[in-house]
């Protein structure tokens, strides 16, 4: 690595380095202009560093250092190769290190301190990272199943983290102090097991139902002493208990909200309603985490499905399934779901009620009877989701929608379960505690008989409260009625508690805590069982019994268990909800949950890796992240409610727990404030809590919320506006590009109008050189007017070139690649003439490549041109077959047809189609004009040119049947021409084709005659001479009409008749120029050299009267000019030279004759 050898020291070093950077930058193709600019800027500044530093201006130095620091800070986010990053970093660091101390001493210290801090932070971070659990395990799962499944485990780990914090909070502030400083076991009444239970306290089923010793332990609320201050330090345990209980919720809220905020910041997508369905499906479909062949296969299949789905959706946005059936099905499904929800809630309530009755009636309960509540709840949570899934199939929603519905239903189910459980529990608590007195009153009802007026009041308020909370859960209405009435009943009993309490050992808080813990344990057992049964055993069965079963177990019925991310995440949320609900009554619940989550983590990951297959429906991981969190937040809120309700509404148990003897649990705060704080504080508190403060505060909050919401709305609005603006700007940019292109097209046209002669001379020249279509004229003219100095010089050059070519060609004869040999020579020949044009030129060897490149550079312009000028397109089209043929025929071909390559560009947009249509089109052209001539058309052209350009006969391989026929016809000729022809074939193709155009297009009668004569002359030399000439003449007759049809440039064609007979020679070129008029324009768009050619043409047009000679000369001239800046000059020059060569070689005699 060269970076190892940083050569020079000091300032010169960095200068050098900067230079090297620059060169490196140049060498390595920097792709993104934005970044290129950035780098350029940075490198410049790097280069300038030393000067700045040397200037010793502290301010500059400071800025420089700041800049370098910025580099250091951001370097990891730059898209540079690592080597560069390292180098730049080293350099920046050195500069900072070197000059920072020079600035001021304090700054030096500051930076030293900052460095130290940074290092410390980094070390800490490195240490912390090592403590993130299950990193490898999750990574492994990710690599097997992708990010979706992994998101479950990451979520689990996150919950695990939360639970750890909760455990630490409760453990260190509640459990540990109680254990260390609280009254030991057995000292007080709340901490001893009653005598009648002592015998069975160690029985397994007692322990199992969390009774006995467990009941009287730190696990539950009842164990904690109510002594205000414990231990020598006077630790206020009850206060701590209350505060920690609240802190659990507060912490959960804060951490959840923070996580959600972070997530939403990360996902920019939520703000936009733009839809890149296909793009996302292509570019974001693959999960780079996947490293398992099976998962990869699955993912591949899923992607294919996804894309197909999108295609189908695109093709038919609306399916016409019978709407009525669908709606009725959905209604049915929803009814089913509601029924099952109501049923589950009823069952839970019924079970709780039954167990309560059983407890009262029977002294000894069986194991089942003790646990049936938890078991039933767990069973419901297990079974109901699957039932919902079945129901969801009725609805025929889009998979994603159905998943949403499913999740919502399951969430409602879980919540309903938890709520009905806790409500039934509270109810049971009350009835249980007041059993001796009012057990009958619970069910005999009638508040009027027993309860006092105050009880009635409380009942109303309570029922109202409950109704409101239940409304949020939206459970079945009948249930609400049922329950609220029951709650009223239970609340009626509260007043009686006071009286009935005296003998009661029972502690309802402990009871609730017990139930929650029991539920959690049972849930864990069921989870384990379900994993083992549903996933593991099923997996085993499927794997090992599939051989001896009549159907394919793996793909049909049992299959492998899918890992249902959504359901599993919901289950986690449900589990967490239980913890939150019970945490206040059982401080050790978070600790238990930590254990549970650890177990779940290992079991789940094991099950996933061994016997699960990924879910078929891809659930978007990132988008769902916040969805999970939102559900968790919802859960937290709803789980907090019962606890808060119990704290606020119920009276704590008389004889157990830290709040025994108090009227309300929260009284502990006011007590503490009153007794332990100075007087002023309690006064302040009383003011603060009085309505005078609270009401305005609430109002203020509301106002704040409203204000923030308004701001958010306006921000959203501006956001939208900006996006729209951005879009319009982009489209405007697009338009601008088009306009610019159009303007460039306009300019040449205008100039053409101004001095048409010039233009004519200009363009036809190009044409001529491009397509050797006018060799006769050109040739003849050159010969006649050779004395003209300009033409002379150029011609001589070209002649020499062509001479060389000729020799080469003749010598090489049948050798396949004479053209290649010839080419460099041409370049050499032409180079001295137009060195400036060759700057950009490429070597002949990579001709085809450069051609390809060109094709990519100006596509927009070309397409513009095509759009703006249908005529031009036509010509292009007609050229296509030639192109195609050329491409197939010879690789050189592309190089030969300089301007025609541009047409290839057009092709490249839709290569196949256009080529096809172009090939088919040409015949149509001719068909329209002269149906009968079709067959003869090509041959004739070819024969025309055969005398001149021998290579022309090469049949374009890809041509249509006509051309094939032509090929057949010319086999004889071919044989003759093979020597030269093969080598030169490529260029001949466009030539002869273009000629077809040209001749068809504009033949004046006189011209035709002369031409015919000429042709005859030529053809005398050839084998097929006479016949062809006659054909040609016939063919020429209808040409005027063709002119109009094909060229459509009336202005030019009109001018033709006006021409003097002499200029008639020009006319073909001119018409050609019409066809090709757009070419220079195109070129003009790309390069400025058009002006050069213009000036050249002006020069040449000074002797316009000399006519075509000039023009011909000029042709070469301007041609070269034009192409000079193109990458393909060589090709052009080569071709041109070939034309010259053709002219010189074959035509000279004939043409002179004809001209005369």
């Amino acid at each position: 690595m060269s970076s190892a050898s940083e050569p020079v020291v000091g300032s010169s070093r960095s200068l050098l380095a900067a230079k090297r950077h620059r060169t490196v930058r140049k060498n390595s193709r920097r792709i993104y202009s934005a970044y290129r600019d950035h780098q350029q800027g940075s490198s410049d500044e790097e280069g300038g560093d030393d000067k700045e530093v040397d200037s010793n201006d502290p301010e500059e130095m400071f800025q420089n250092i700041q800049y370098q620091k910025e580099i250091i800070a951001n370097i990891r986010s730059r898209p540079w190769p690592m080597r560069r990053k390292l180098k730049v970093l080293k350099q920046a660091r050195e500069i900072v290190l070197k000059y920072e101390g020079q600035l001021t001493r304090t700054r030096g210290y500051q930076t030293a301190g900052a460095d130290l801090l940074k290092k410390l932070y980094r070390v800490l971070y490195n240490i912390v990272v090592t403590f993130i659990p299950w990193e490898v395990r999750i990574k492994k799962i990710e690599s097997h199943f992708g990010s979706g499944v992994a998101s479950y485990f990451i979520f689990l780990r996150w919950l695990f983290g939360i639970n750890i914090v909760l455990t630490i909070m409760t453990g260190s502030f509640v459990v540990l102090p109680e254990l260390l400083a609280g009254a030991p076991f057995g000292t007080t009444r709340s901490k001893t097991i009653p005598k009648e239970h002592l015998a069975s306290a160690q029985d397994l089923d007692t322990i199992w139902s969390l009774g006995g010793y467990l009941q009287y332990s730190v696990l539950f609320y009842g164990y904690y002493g109510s002594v205000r201050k414990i231990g020598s330090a006077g630790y206020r345990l009850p206060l701590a208990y209350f505060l920690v209980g609240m802190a659990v919720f507060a912490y959960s809220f804060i951490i959840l909200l923070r996580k959600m905020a972070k997530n939403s910041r990360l996902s920019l997508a939520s703000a936009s309603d733009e839809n890149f369905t296909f793009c996302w499906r292509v570019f974001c479909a693959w999960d780079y985490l996947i490293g398992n062949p099976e998962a990869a296969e699955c993912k591949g299949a899923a992607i294919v499905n996804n894309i197909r789905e999108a295609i189908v959706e695109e093709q038919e946005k609306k399916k016409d399934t019978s709407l009525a059936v669908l709606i009725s099905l959905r209604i049915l499904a929803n009814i089913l779901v509601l029924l099952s929800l109501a049923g589950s809630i009823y069952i839970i309530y019924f079970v709780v009620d039954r167990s309560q009755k059983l407890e009262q009636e029977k002294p000894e309960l069986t194991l089942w009877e003790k646990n049936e509540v938890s078991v039933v709840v767990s069973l419901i949570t297990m079974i109901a989701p699957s039932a919902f899934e079945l129901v969801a199939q009725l609805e025929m929603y889009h998979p994603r929608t159905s998943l949403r519905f499913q999740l919502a239903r399951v969430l409602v189910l879980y919540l309903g379960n938890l709520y009905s459980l806790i409500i039934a529990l509270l109810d049971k608590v009350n009835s249980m505690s007041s059993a001796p007195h009012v057990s009958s009153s619970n069910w005999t009802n009638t508040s009027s008989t027993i309860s006092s007026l105050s009880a009635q009041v409380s009942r109303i308020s309570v029922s109202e409260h409950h109704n409101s909370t239940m409304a949020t859960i939206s459970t079945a209405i009948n249930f609400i009625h049922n329950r609220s009435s029951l709650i009223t009943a239970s609340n009626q009993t509260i007043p009686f508690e006071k009286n009935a309490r005296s003998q009661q050992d029972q502690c309802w808080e402990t009871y609730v805590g017990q139930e929650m813990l029991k539920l959690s344990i049972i849930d864990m057992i069921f989870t384990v069982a379900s994993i083992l049964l549903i996933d593991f055993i099923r997996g085993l069965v499927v794997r090992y019994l599939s051989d001896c079963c009549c159907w394919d177990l793996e793909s049909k019925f049992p299959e492998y268990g899918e890992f249902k991310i959504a359901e599993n995440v919901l289950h986690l949320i449900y589990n967490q909800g239980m913890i939150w609900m019970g945490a206040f009554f059982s401080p050790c619940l978070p600790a238990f949950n930590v254990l549970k989550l650890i177990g779940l983590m290992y079991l789940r990951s094991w099950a996933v890796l061994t016997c699960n297959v990924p879910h078929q429906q891809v659930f978007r991981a990132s988008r769902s992240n916040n969805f999970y969190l939102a559900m968790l937040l919802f859960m937290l809120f709803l789980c907090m409610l019962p606890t808060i309700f119990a704290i606020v509404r119920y009276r704590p148990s008389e004889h157990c727990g830290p709040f025994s003897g108090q009227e309300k649990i929260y009284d502990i705060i006011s007590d503490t404030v009153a007794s332990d704080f100075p007087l002023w504080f309690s006064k302040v508190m009383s003011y603060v809590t009085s309505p005078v403060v609270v009401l305005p505060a609430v109002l203020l909050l509301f106002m704040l919320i409203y204000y923030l919401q308004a701001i958010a709305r306006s921000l959203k609005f501006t956001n939208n506006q900006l996006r729209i603006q951005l879009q319009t700007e982009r489209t405007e940019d697009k338009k601008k590009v088009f306009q610019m292109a159009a303007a460039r097209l306009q300019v040449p046209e205008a100039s053409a109008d101004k001095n048409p002669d010039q233009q004519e001379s200009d363009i036809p020249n190009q044409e001529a050189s491009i397509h050797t279509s006018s060799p006769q004229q050109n040739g003849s003219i050159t010969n006649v007017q050779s004395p003209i100095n300009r033409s002379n010089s150029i011609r001589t050059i070209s002649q020499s070139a062509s001479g060389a070519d000729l020799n080469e060609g003749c010598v090489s004869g049948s050798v396949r690649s004479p053209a290649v040999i010839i080419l460099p020579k041409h370049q050499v020949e032409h180079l001295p003439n137009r060195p400036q044009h060759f700057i950009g030129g490429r070597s002949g060897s990579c001709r085809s490549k450069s051609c390809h490149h060109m094709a990519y550079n100006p596509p927009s312009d070309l397409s513009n041109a095509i759009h703006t000028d249908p005529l031009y397109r036509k010509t292009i089209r007609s050229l296509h077959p030639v192109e195609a043929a050329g491409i197939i025929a010879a690789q050189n071909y592309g190089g030969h047809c300089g301007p025609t390559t541009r047409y290839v560009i057009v092709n490249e947009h839709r290569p196949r189609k256009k080529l096809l249509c172009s090939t088919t089109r040409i015949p149509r052209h001719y068909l329209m004009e002269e149906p009968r001539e079709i067959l003869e058309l090509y041959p004739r052209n070819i024969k025309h040119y055969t005398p001149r350009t021998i290579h022309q006969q090469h049949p374009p391989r890809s041509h249509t049947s006509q051309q094939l026929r032509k090929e057949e016809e010319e086999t004889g000729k071919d044989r003759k021409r093979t020597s030269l022809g093969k080598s030169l074939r490529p260029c001949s193709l466009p030539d002869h084709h273009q000629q077809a155009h040209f001749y068809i297009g504009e033949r004046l009668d006189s011209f035709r005659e002369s031409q015919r004569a000429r042709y005859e002359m030529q053809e005398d030399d050839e084998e097929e001479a006479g016949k062809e000439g006659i054909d040609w003449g016939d063919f020429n007759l209808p040409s005027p009409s063709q002119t109009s049809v094909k060229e459509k440039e009336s202005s030019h064609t009109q001018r033709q008749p006006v021409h003097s007979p002499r200029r008639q020679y020009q006319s073909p070129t001119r018409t050609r120029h019409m066809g090709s008029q757009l070419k220079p324009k195109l070129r003009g768009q790309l390069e400025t050299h058009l002006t050069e050619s213009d000036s050249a043409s002006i020069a040449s047009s000074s002797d316009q009267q000399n006519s075509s000679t000039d023009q011909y000369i000029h042709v070469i001239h301007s041609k070269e000019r034009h192409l000079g800046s193109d990458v393909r000059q060589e090709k052009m020059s080569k071709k041109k030279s070939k034309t010259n060569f053709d002219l010189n070689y074959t035509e000279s005699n004939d043409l002179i004759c004809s001209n005369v």
Partner: protein
Amino acid sequence: MGNKQTIFTDEQLDAYQDCTFFTRKEILRLHSRYHELAPHLVPMDYTNEPDCKLPLALIVDMPELKENPFRNRIVESFSEDGMGNLSFNEFVDMFSVLSEMAPRELKAIYAFKIYDYNVDNYLCKEDLEKTLNKLTKEELTPEEVELVCEKAIEEADLDGDNKLSYADFENMITRAPDFLSTFHIRI
């Protein structure tokens, strides 16, 4: 190897940590992974920055990349020579960009590079076709591929040149909801 052999100097580790999103431990692990690929080629001692490059074939064989349909392109676009030979620096760079911590912009740049098969700075139809065929293991019919490519270009092409420039791509990819979560490789 078991004992405290210095693979990198502290300075180097610091520099790597500055230049990447990795911790010290991860960089060491990366080195060991790199070393594992070709134990006889890669020296254990990197303090003097040996010049050593591993060919594409070796790197592509890593389990992290093995199943990735774009593995060759990934490696190629991170190699300075464009042929897929990775030095350790480039190796680290690759996984840094693909790590969880890398910002969206950086990932987008390299994603663009990866999908740009012919390295012409545009995602043209051919690139899309190639991407799609790799992605679907050529299970789609040519017509479907054609349709999807056309649609994709239509959706994302802002300047109407029938191919996606980086700006188009970035605009599209930054809105993709799961680009960040899927365009990363853990190592």
